Each structure stands twice: as C-alpha cells, then as structure tokens.
C-alpha cells in the first residue's frame, strides 16, 4: 500500500520542535514519546543531540517503568560515536545500576572501556562479535575511526602503518586507498620508517608539535587593561 515517505522538510520541523521542548519544557512526562522518536530520528539521519537524549534519560529515571532498553542502547551507541567527548559517561550516570548489568549495556560498557584506554584492537574484535548492536546505528564505524585518528594525532608525529591499521580496522588495499585520500585532502605524508615499514606523518597541531603551542600564558585580556585607562589619562 503506497505510504509516502515523509519529506525531509517535515522531519526537520519535528526535530526543531523537540529541541524547543527540551529547552522550554523539559520536566514534563508527556514529551517522552517525542524524545524517543527523536532518538530514532538521530539514528536514521545521522544527527545527534546530547541535551535531548539526557532529557529522555532523566524522564526514564523519574519513571523507570517506561524505560525502553532499545532506545537507551541507541542513545549509548550515539554517545560512543561522540568521543572524545565524555557523553557516554554522562549517560551512564543516569541509568540505574541493575539496567547496566544487563545486555546489551554490559557489552557497550566494555566497548567504551576499550576506547577510553586506547585498546582499539580489543574494541574492533568485540564490536565484530556484537554486530547486531553496532550495525543498528549507521555511521558508527566512521565515527569510531575518526576518534581513533584523533587520538593518534594527539599522540604521534609519525605513526607506524601497522599501528594505524589496527586503530581504524582497515588493512591492505583498503588502507592504501584510505591513505591516498588522506594524503590528498588532509596533508598526510607517507614516509619510510625505522624498521623499514611505512610510517605516516600526521598533520602538525599544537598537541603533537609543542613548538606550535600558542604561548597564551602572558596574554592580558582587554577588560583588565581598561581598568587602568582612568589612570593613564
């Protein structure tokens, strides 16, 4: 039966209203269904709203019988994708302990732990075993890969190919293609490493190149200087 897919425009209208609700009337049990729909929308349209999701978790806290395991799981996966922001922890603070001890939350907490402690190999292995959890949210793989690259960029000026491969879970020809793209649009440079293998020089930032750190230690804000204007005149 022909049921038309809702046009993009009205989807945007719904999310605008939900954000408003969260800002203006968050302590209201009636908005719970709207917030749940919004989670599903975030998943489908690859968007994200921490405020709305925290608002929903709070409502679940106020009325535990209405908690939906599926929705909470989706919120947590989205939160993982927001790393390095601590959103995953922020969500956990609002989820009762006995719920956290069940699946899929136990697995999600393990995944988070691996990501927090640089255990990328362990993470990808575990994620492969839990495809049903992570495949439910489009964009998951790319988001984690972005986080992995972020941490590598903080840590390395030059990272061995094998370390990079393990972190983003891409090998062989796919990795070659990935690197090609990065060389082209992000300024990565492929060099020869100590041990003979490939080494990738990552873009220079203040985090992996301390000489680039802006020495803001002695900067004086303007409003402090204005204090002495009366004296100077």
């Amino acid at each position, binding site marked *: 039966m022909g049921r038309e897919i809702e046009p993009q425009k009205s989807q945007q209208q719904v999310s605008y209203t939900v954000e408003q609700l969260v800002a203006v009337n*968050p*302590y*209201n*049990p009636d908005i719970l269904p709207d917030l749940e729909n919004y989670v599903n929308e975030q998943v489908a349209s690859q968007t994200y709203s*921490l*405020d709305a999701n*925290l*608002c929903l*978790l*709070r409502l679940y*806290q*106020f*009325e*535990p019988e209405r908690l939906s395991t599926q929705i909470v799981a989706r919120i947590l996966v989205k939160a993982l994708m927001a790393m*390095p*922001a*601590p959103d995953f*922890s*922020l969500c*956990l*603070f*609002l989820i*009762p*302990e006995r719920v956290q001890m069940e699946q899929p939350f136990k697995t999600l907490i393990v995944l988070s*732990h691996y990501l*927090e*402690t*640089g*255990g990328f*190999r362990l993470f990808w292995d575990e994620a492969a075993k839990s495809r049903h959890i992570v495949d439910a949210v489009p964009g998951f793989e790319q988001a984690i890969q972005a986080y992995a690259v972020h*941490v*590598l960029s*903080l*840590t*390395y*000026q*030059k*990272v*061995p190919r094998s*370390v990079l491969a393990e972190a983003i879970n891409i090998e062989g020809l796919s990795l070659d293609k990935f690197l090609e793209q990065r060389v082209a649009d992000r300024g990565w440079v492929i060099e020869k*490493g*100590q*041990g003979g293998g490939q*080494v990738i020089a990552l873009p220079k930032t*203040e*985090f*992996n*190149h*301390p000489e680039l*750190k802006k*020495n803001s*230690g*002695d*900067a*004086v804000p303007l409003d*402090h*200087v204005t*204090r*002495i204007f009366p*004296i100077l005149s």
Partner: protein
Amino acid sequence: MAANYEYEEASGHYDDQAAALRQQEVGYDPNFVPDSVKSFVVHLYRHIREKNVYEIHQMYETSFQTLSERLFKDTPWPSVDAVAHYVDNDHVFCLLYREMWFRHLYARLSPTLKQRIDSWDNYCSLFQVVLHGVVNMQLPNQWLWDMVDEFVYQFQSFCQYRAKMKNKTEQEIALLRQFDQAWNVYGVLNFLQALVEKSAIIQILEQEKQGLEQFTATDGYDYSGGSNVLKVLGYFSMIGLLRVHCLLGDYHTGLKCLQPIDISQQGVYTSVIGSHIATIYHYGFASLMLRRYVDGIREFNKILLYIYKTKQYHQKSPQYEQILKKNEQMYALLAICLSFCPQMKLVDEAVNAQLREKYGEKMGKLQRYDDEGYGDKLSRRQRYADEAFGIYDELFSYACPKFITPSAPSFDEPLVNYNQDAYRLQLKLFLSEVRQQELLVGARTFLKVYSTISLGKLANYLDVDESTLRMTLMTYKHKTHAVDSDGKIISNADVDFYIDDDMIRVVNSKPVKRYGDFFLRQIVKLEGVINDVDRIKVESAN
C-alpha cells in the same frame, strides 16, 4: 567499598514514629505564644510592610536565631494559627512565617511525614503567590537564598526518607500513596524552572551586560519602588537547579542551568556566603565528573582562598558549621582533581599549604608508583594501586553530594531500603574512571625524568609489552586532553610528549610568569598610594 563517611544521617532523622514521639515528649503547646515571640512577629510584619530591608535582615538573621536558641531549642515555634491575629492574618506573612517554622523544625528536630507534606504545601502556596506577581516586598537576599536552599534540601531529605521503605508503617505507606504529589520530582523542578522563567532573570542578566539593566549593581534590590522577591528567587533558582541536577547525576544539564551566571565575576551569588559556596561546590563537583579538572581546580582554589581569608567573620553566624563542612569537602575534591591533573601552579600558596596539611600524605599515595626495580615490584605496584583506589573511594564518599533516587517506590513489591542506590552508582562510575587513570601513574613517573626514551626501553621499565605501552600512552593523551564546554580540545597535561615512530620525546611545559597582570596590579596600587599622599598634603595646608 570503604565506609561512607557521614553519608547516613543520624538514623533517628528518618524514623517517622520516633519523630512524632519526640515532639510529644517535650510537652510542646503549639498555641502558647511567649511575649517575645509576639513582639518578634509584630515588628517583623511592620518592617516588611515598610520595606525596611536592613531591619528585616537583623530580625531574620539575629533575633530569630536568638529566640530559637533561648526558647525553642528542641521544640517548634508556636503554630502559625496562634500568631496570625497579631499580624492582621496577613496571608503572605503567614506563608513566610510557616516557611521559617518548618526550617526550624528540620534543623532542630525531625519532621514527621505529615509535616513534610505540609511543608511542601506551604512552599507551593508561597511560590504560587510569588509567581503570580502579587508580592510587593523587599526581602534580604539571605532569606531568599535560604528559601531556595531549604526547598532543595527538604526535597533531598524527602527522597532519602521515602527510599527507606523497610521499616515503614502501614500508616506511613497510606499517606505516601495518598499524597504522591508531595515533593514529586516534577513539581520541584517545575517550580524552580517557573521561578527562573517568570522572573525573566536570564534576559535581565543578558541585558545587564549591555548596560540596559541594573541588577548586580544593586545586589538584586529594587530601588524604584518595586519588589526584589521574584527576580532574586529566580536568580537563586538557577543555582537550585544546578544542585538538583547534581543530586540526580545529570552534571551536564546542571552546568547549563548555571550558565547565565558568570562565576568569574562577583555577582548576587556572592552576596550570600551560603549561595557562593553552594554554587562553586556544585560547579566544581560537576566539572570533576565531566573530567574538566582544570575548571574544577581553578574554582575550588578561588573559593578555598576566600574562605581561608574570611571565615573568621562568620564565626557567629548560624551557617558557620555548614561553611566549615563544605570547606573540608572541597579540599577533598581539590585533592582528587589535582591527582588526575597535577597542575600545582593553579593553586594558591595558602590553599596549597592547607591542602598539604589535610591531604598531603594521601595525595602522595595516589601518585605512588614503584620504580625501584627490585624484589616483587609487580605485586608492590598492585598494592600501591589498590591503596590509591581505596583513598579515592574514601575522598569521593566524603565529599560527594547526597545523591537521590527521584522515582517513587513501588509499594507492591517487598519493602527494601534503596536510599543508597544513587550514591552507589555514582561512586561505581567514578571508580571505573579511577581504574582507567590508574594505568597512567607509571607512565607519568618515567616521563617526568626522561627527555627522550625509546618505546622499547620504557616498556621494559613498566614491565609491559610495546603494544600495551602504546595503549597506555594513547590513554594518557586522551585523558589529559579534555573537551571543554564549547567542544574544543584543551590540554591539561603537566608533562607532555609526542611519539616519533618508536621514540618518545618528552616536552616539559615551563610555568609562565604573568608579567602583564603583575604590572597592571602595581599600576593601580601606586595610583591609590599617590591619591592618599595627595590627600595628606591638602589637609596639612589648613
């Protein structure tokens, strides 16, 4: 889990029967009104009508305390019905009197369930009156802060009471079922939210920045004949919301509620010591849980220095004990923040000295790592890590807010006590963060003494393989680069490094001397001295 210090209030406090019994025992007659009380209410009523804020403040802060101490040490004040006819049965005054009446009860005695419910009703009536904008009084900020503070406190107390289902009588359970709206979390949050919105305080603060409004400059008081009550209650409600969200474990939203207040400046929140401390304590705690350690350290440092310098002036005030308690708790939180983020340069000398005195030994143990290389170092390292773990547990439990479970119990299930659930969850999550950061203690120890070291060599010292070391170093980087409120990455590492293939190069950040600020301060100071000298010359010419 280590014993939770003072987490349980005196057990008598939550036992309804014991509370009722105690009040009866002391032979309390609600209708007896001593002359001093009659005089008190008559004068207070008059001062409020005449908008004499100074006198109101004197009576509220001093006379009320003196009378309570002298006549009502362990009984409630006379009932509002007994005093109403001395004050023209003024509806609003009676609400205010009742608010003080209940606050006194909670402080000196234990409230019964019925009294808790009545107090809720009183707050509803009082806030409704204020929200309808029909109040035309000016009340001291101290009083208005106490109202909001007490409102949140009684909510917290009720949740704790309700969660102890084990020894509840049939009567109590029936009352709880009947009055399920009392201290309902939605009600509490919506009242605070309503006060914020109806007062338009956020817009007022915004417009003040552009010079279009006066609020902070007058300490919130209205000098054009109006009332300060709604505006200032709205202002303090933002802090109330921060507090409630922290009790629920929602630190992100808590900080959002506080955002309109600029805590880098003085403001109405600093006009009352209680509100100043409550604001910074909760801001700092939320920052700790959000892993924004530098923010926490900076604010704790400021207020601990302030308390250090000014606490002697508050010795006689009824809030003195609370001030001291919060002071101790904030030192504990500061110790935790500094252990995760060792940036001693952010801490003032006086505060540092106090910190060393209170927690020097414990802080040393938190960063202890065995690098001696002899004997059974692996089990020694594990012992040190376990000891540190225990200290984190102890400090957190001592200093954390009294978390609550906001939902009502299911009265049909077997009656158990679940009042510790919320605290246990927050502690558990905090300790799992501790476990993750534990991995960094070893790396930090060695990075402090080397300028360059190969991955292989460092892995050897730490007794791990290279792959594990790479993980540890990435963890270090991740944990020391926090995401701030704008989503930017900020490094708070004291010792930093980068890896070049298989070599680690360490970077030590040297503390920067702040010449700019120093000169500015001296210029202003010199100008002050010159002005003083000029004045002397003029006087001696006479």
